[in-house]
Structures are given as structure tokens and as C-alpha cells.
């Protein structure tokens, strides 16, 4: 039995929405990273679903690009996080309010 594409779209949209809400509402930087990863993986899932529906391999190649770039991005992000943790001894993003005006 073939699963209709609409189901994939809804599933990805929900996963993406959870990611967005997590980024907006959670205060722990690590959890925010995980939520950004969730957003990107929702995209990957949908991309693969479309790719197989359209019988077109370009979508799957794009998924590889997204995975590689996401890994690079998280590496940089965690490095910045470590740098911040060394100075403030915390990963709570509420301390990031020194720059205001």
C-alpha cells in the first residue's frame, strides 16, 4: 500500500513546528540546538518523500548536502557554546541580554 504524500507533508510540518516552538520557547542552548536539528531533519524527511514521489534522485542528493552542512553548522555552534560556557558557566540563553539598547 502506498502512503499518500499528504501524510508526509503533515508529519514534516508538525515536526518542523515542534522544532520552531522549541527554538522560541526553550531556554537551554543545547535543547535549542536539538530543535534546530529537528527542523532540518523534518526538511530531510519531506525532501526524501517528494523525491521518491516524483521519481527524481536530485532531492536525495540535496538531502546529503543538508546533512553535511548541518553537521558543519553544529560543530561551529557547539564551539561557540563551549566558548560561552567557559566565560559564564551556564548554557542558559537568558544571560544573553548584555547587548541591549
Amino acid at each position, binding site marked *: 500500500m502506498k502512503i499518500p504524500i499528504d501524510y508526509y507533508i503533515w508529519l514534516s510540518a508538525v515536526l518542523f513546528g515542534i522544532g520552531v516552538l522549541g527554538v522560541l520557547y526553550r531556554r537551554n542552548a543545547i535543547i535549542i540546538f536539538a530543535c534546530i536539528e529537528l527542523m532540518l531533519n523534518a526538511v530531510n524527511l519531506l525532501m526524501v518523500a517528494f523525491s521518491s514521489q516524483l521519481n527524481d534522485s536530485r532531492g536525495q542528493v540535496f538531502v546529503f548536502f*543538508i546533512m553535511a552542512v548541518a553537521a558543519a553548522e553544529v560543530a561551529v555552534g557547539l564551539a561557540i557554546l563551549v566558548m560561552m560556557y567557559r566565560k559564564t558557566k551556564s548554557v542558559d540563553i537568558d544571560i544573553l541580554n548584555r547587548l541591549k539598547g
Partner: protein
Amino acid sequence: MNALYVICGLGIFSLVAEVFNLRKWIFFVSLFGLLVALTWVVIDWKAISYFYRGMVYFDHFALAFSGLILLISIFWFWMFRDYFVDEEHRTDKSALVLFVVTGAVMMVSFNNMAILFLGLEILSISIYVLAGSNKQNLFSTEAAFKYFLMGSFATGFLLFGITLVYGATGSFNITEIANFIIAHRTLPRFIYIGILMMMVGLAFKISAVPFHQWAPDVYEGSPTPITTLMSTVVKIGAFGAFVKLFSVAFITFSPSLKLIEQGIVVITLLVANITAVYQLNVKRMLAYSSVAQVGYLLLGFSSDSAHSAGTVFYYLTAYSVASVMSFAVVEIVEKNTGSAHVDNFKGLFKNNPLLAVAMTVALFSLAGIPPFAGFFGKYLVFTLSIGNGYIVLTILALITSLMGVYYYFKPLVAMSQPGSGKIVIFSSEKILLWVLILINIAVGIFPDLAQLL
């Protein structure tokens, strides 16, 4: 395309230079290489072509924008030489700056969403690191972290948009997408959501209101050389990508997208200009001003999406030359007095006439006061929007640009007040400031530059 190879090669050379102990040569090699790349852009002007099976397309639009990016980065290397001399990690920094330039050139020359995404990420990841490059300073780390969070959040939106558009049209190639949309009148509804999400993703990058909250904090916290890079090279790249995407791929929808763009224009102009009035730190004021300039750029683009490339290019040229100039002065003042607070500009007219004159020219140009390039940029944008019948929007833009005059004059007033402390400037910086002043006036004298595209 050759220009892209040269810049990319320079970046890799920069990384390898650390191993072979060639640190001294980095600066000269980078400057020379960027000049070579700029020459290639000029040579390629006659030979427009696709590369890599239509993934990259260097047309006049892409070449003109790449030329502007390269010119600005040459000025950048010239001005901020100290950034590579004083501290450690200088080869890493110059490599990252060169990768930012690579990413920006890719973003203006893409013809396939994959290249747009990769260019955007090459640019963004490098600039996250650079924003935090002042490791001793907590503000710099904080700026890097904020920029990273907001940037990758925006990337998520852009990617979801790309996926939905791919699902509806079955292609990543922007010309194929445009043809598909023209050929098929009934499209799945999710393509509209996809287009809107791509717009949100790119609006974050060009820092249009309501997606601008990160910009003032990041601009203030990052080291001034990097702030300059963000407000010129990154902005040119991101705006070039915005224009290319919405004037090629989604041109069929432009009547309805126009309404959203104009909504963004109205709030960008109002919010950015009103908030800028209250700023006392010149760096932060310039950050809000760069958000406000995006409003004028978008006004020009949304008035006539298909034929506004020339106007946008002219405005971006005027804006980025003035921006480099003002940040150069801010950097010199900040280095000597410790902060970019408006009081630190006092007495500049008496003690350092050149710095004061350069700052005056830059701010006059940003405010749009006649003999300088910024005036003609605003003039072209307003002509375009009146010509397409957006009278009310143009009047609003005029009023907000008058507000701009008020906050741009604050540093000028401070500079003419009495103050103490003479700042020593190097002769290379003096020459650069003169060159930039002359370019600013020359661009103002030849508004025909807008006809280039």
C-alpha cells in the same frame, strides 16, 4: 566563474600558508588575488554563460554584483590590515573572510537552489566564527551565539521553503521552476507556503523588520572589521540572492508577493528609523541605519520586480561605499578611545579634519543629501516607485529619510563640538579615505551605473 575559482583558491592558500610559514605574505597575496578576481569579472563581462549543467549562471546581474562584492572586499582588506597583524590566528581569519566572499559571490550567481543553499551556508558558517573572533570579549562571543542561533533558524525556514517548492515543481533550477509555474495554472497549495518560507529565510539574512532583532546586537558585539563585512559583503550577497530568486523563479506571483514585500517595507522603514533615533552608540546607530536602508532597497525592488535590478545595484553600491567609509572611521575612533559612543567623536573636526570629513561624506551619503551617491540612489528608488503608482509609500519613505537626517547628524554635531585628543592615522588609511570620498562623489556624478543592468 574564474573569479570564483580565484577567491576559493585564495581561501585554501590562506589555510595552507599557516603550515608553510607564509604568514607575512597573506595580506599581499589576498589583496593581489582579489584584484585578479576583479579583473576576471571585467573580462567575463562579454562572455555570459552557464556552468556545471546550468547550476551557476554568470549573467550581467551576477557579474555586476560579484564585481561590487570584490571591490568592497579589496577596500576591506586595505582598511582592516591590523585585524590580521596584531593577534593570533591571522591565517584562519583571512581564510574565513575569503570564504565569506566566496559564499557571497555564489549567492548572487546561483541558478539552482542547491548553490543558493551552499553559498548561503559557506557565507554564514564563516561569519559566525568571525563574529566570535575576539575571544577575550564576552560581547563578541554573545554576538556570535545570537547570530548562530538566528542564522540557523532562518536556514531551516529557507530549506523547508525550498523543499515545498521542489515538491510542487519537481526541480531546483530556478528557470525551470519559472517555466513550470507559467505552464501549470493549477499548482498544489503548499507551493505558496514554500515561497513565503523562502522569503522569511532570506528576510532574516537581509535583516528586514520583523526579522531584524539579531542585527543591532550582533553588529554591536562583533569586532568592527567584521561588522563592516556584515553590513556590506553579506548584505550585498543576501540582497542579490533575494532579487534573483524573486525576479526569476517566482516572477509570475509578483503581484501578490508585492503586497507582502510592501508590508515589510512599511514596518522596516518605520521601526528601524524610529529606533535609530534613540541610539547613543554610533556602531549600533549604524546597525539600525543598515536595517533602514534595506527598507529603501526593498521599496525599489517591490515597485517593479522585473526591471529594478539596475536601481537596486546602484543603491547597494552607494550604500556599501558609504558604509565601509563610516565603519572605517568608527574603527579608528574606537581603537583610540575604547568605545564608539557618540561622545568619543567630540573634537574630531578640529583635531582630525580628514576623519571628520570622511565621516561627514559617508553620513551625508547614507542620509541622501545631494552631491553624494546616496542621494541619487534614493532618487532612483523613489522615481521607480512613483512611476509604478505607489505615491503613499514614497511619501512615507521620504518622511522616514528625513528622520534619518536627524540621527545621522548626531555624530556630526558631536564632531564639531570642542574635544581633546588627537588620533594618529597611518598614511595608507589616509589614502583609502580619500579614495573612498572620491568614489562616493564619482558614483554620484555618474548615475548611469544603474543602466548597466
